[in-house]
């Protein structure tokens, strides 16, 4: 059957036959790098046009409709525009850090790609601490925002950076706790194990209400962690004009922009993996016929479908809700989400021990 893993294996075999092992490794690395860059850029283009269309339809508008068929090439045109714009560095800025920040943002976003299973057996590195790795690496994102905001020598940026510092670190807790709920249920940190455990049903279905609560907490927390509205305090357009990237322009701004969207993709992919079964098709208990039909849909389509559904939900939030104020944002985390997810984790543990899940 045609699949990503099949292609990868074929290629690996052919390369091993043709070249010596070192060269094979290097060629594979180059191919992987190019593929990731392509995925990265492609995701940026797709997510931007998706966001614009979603927002337009929710706002009874048409959205971009000039470039390409139904405006689908709009984000490509925007990229070209950003490419020829001047990336200005303000005079008063800390130039080194100012230019470093977008790189950090990009590296973090890129590193998070490693443990994601895009399709059946198609993963860059199926590390045994996959979930821990994700939550560890995603913490670095805040550093790039802090650097960007601080080094800009702009008061709006500084405020935005400070806000996002408090915000991201706070929400990491409940995101981590809700991830732990799944880890408790599966007993493994490895992404492939977690997906395998959902062979006969996704966790969101077989985990009863506690897992649904964990899922909702997770979605809220990652929305906050990626600085998306209604938690976009770091940008807070109507208060801080553009928040931490006020001074960024041209390609440097575009990198932040891209990193933000890729981060949204990644957290949604993690959410899809943990709660919705990743690339695992939709299976119901022992309805073998039904499960077979589901198996015919390629695993990558399952994965991207689930991920994009979650991305849509996050966009849906953005175009519906007003923004929270900074103290309310932290109240929500410390007074509502954190206690709820702590209690929820205990309940999930009890459930796992009692084997109440399917």
């Amino acid at each position, binding site marked *: 059957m045609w699949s990503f893993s099949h292609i990868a294996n074929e290629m690996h075999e052919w390369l091993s036959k043709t070249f010596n092992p070192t060269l094979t490794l290097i060629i594979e690395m180059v191919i992987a790098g190019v593929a990731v860059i392509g995925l990265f850029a492609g995701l940026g283009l797709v997510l931007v046009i998706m966001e614009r269309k979603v927002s337009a339809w929710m706002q009874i508008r048409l959205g971009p409709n000039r470039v390409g068929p139904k405006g689908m090439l709009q984000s490509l045109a925007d990229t070209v525009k950003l490419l020829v714009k001047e990336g200005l560095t303000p005079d008063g800025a800390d130039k080194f850090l100012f230019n470093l920040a977008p790189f950090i943002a990009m590296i973090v976003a890129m590193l998070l790609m490693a443990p994601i299973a895009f399709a059946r057996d198609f993963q860059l590195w199926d590390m045994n601490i996959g979930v821990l790795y994700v939550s560890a690496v995603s913490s670095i994102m805040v550093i790039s925002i802090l650097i960007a905001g601080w080094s800009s020598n702009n008061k709006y940026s500084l405020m935005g950076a400070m806000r996002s510092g408090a915000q991201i670190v706070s929400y990491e807790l409940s995101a981590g706790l809700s991830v732990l709920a799944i880890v408790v249920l599966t007993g493994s940190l490895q992404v492939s194990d977690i997906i395998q455990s959902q062979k006969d049903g996704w966790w969101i279905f077989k985990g009863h209400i506690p897992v649904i609560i964990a899922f909702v907490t997770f979605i809220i927390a990652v929305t906050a962690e990626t600085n998306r509205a209604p938690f976009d305090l770091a940008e807070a357009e109507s208060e801080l004009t553009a928040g931490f990237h006020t001074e960024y322009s041209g390609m440097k701004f575009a990198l932040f922009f891209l990193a933000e969207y890729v981060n949204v993709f990644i957290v949604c992919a993690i959410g899809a993996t943990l709660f919705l079964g990743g690339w695992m098709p939709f299976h119901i208990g022992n309805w073998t016929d039904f499960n077979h039909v589901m198996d015919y849909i390629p695993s990558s389509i399952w994965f991207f479908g689930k991920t994009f559904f979650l991305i849509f939900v996050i966009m849906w939030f953005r175009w*519906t809700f007003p923004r929270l104020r900074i*103290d309310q944002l932290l109240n929500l985390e410390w007074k509502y989400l954190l206690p709820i997810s702590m209690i929820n984790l205990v309940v999930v543990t009890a459930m796992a021990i009692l084997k109440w899940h399917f």
Partner: protein
Amino acid sequence: MSKEINHKEPSSIPPSGGWGGYIKDVYRGVKSLLVGMKRTMYYFTHHKEIITQQYPDNRETLDLPDRFKGEVVMPHDEKNEHRCTGCQACELACPNGTIKVITQSVILADGRKKKAIDKLVYHLELCTMCNLCIVACPSDAIVMAQTFEHSVFDRNELTKILNNPGSKIMEGVE
């Protein structure tokens, strides 16, 4: 320096008190959010509600009401005649000095001298479309046109002479 800031408590939902209130708050909050999401989802799926006008594409069907105040024009009939007597009422009525009436005296066929307009200069760039000149005109010589795409590259082009070259005043208009 002393800073006596009249600090107000940051607002949160007035707590209903106790654990029941806590859960009630969460329930009410989530419900209100879901109601809003339902509304946006309705519009997301109902594309018929879209109200965007695709302006440059719908130029042909664009229907401006006949009272729309676009710019001042002076209608001429097929004999290249207009109704302006050069009385300067419009010039006086205009708050901005948009209209300048330049008159000349012409000698009529019977030898009498008569005042008539040489040029009626109209500065579109100064005009605020207030309609006062149209109201002031005793002989209905000028009207508002329904044009609205006025942008040009050189602002001198906005200074217009409303009467056609070689035009005359219509018979019977005093």
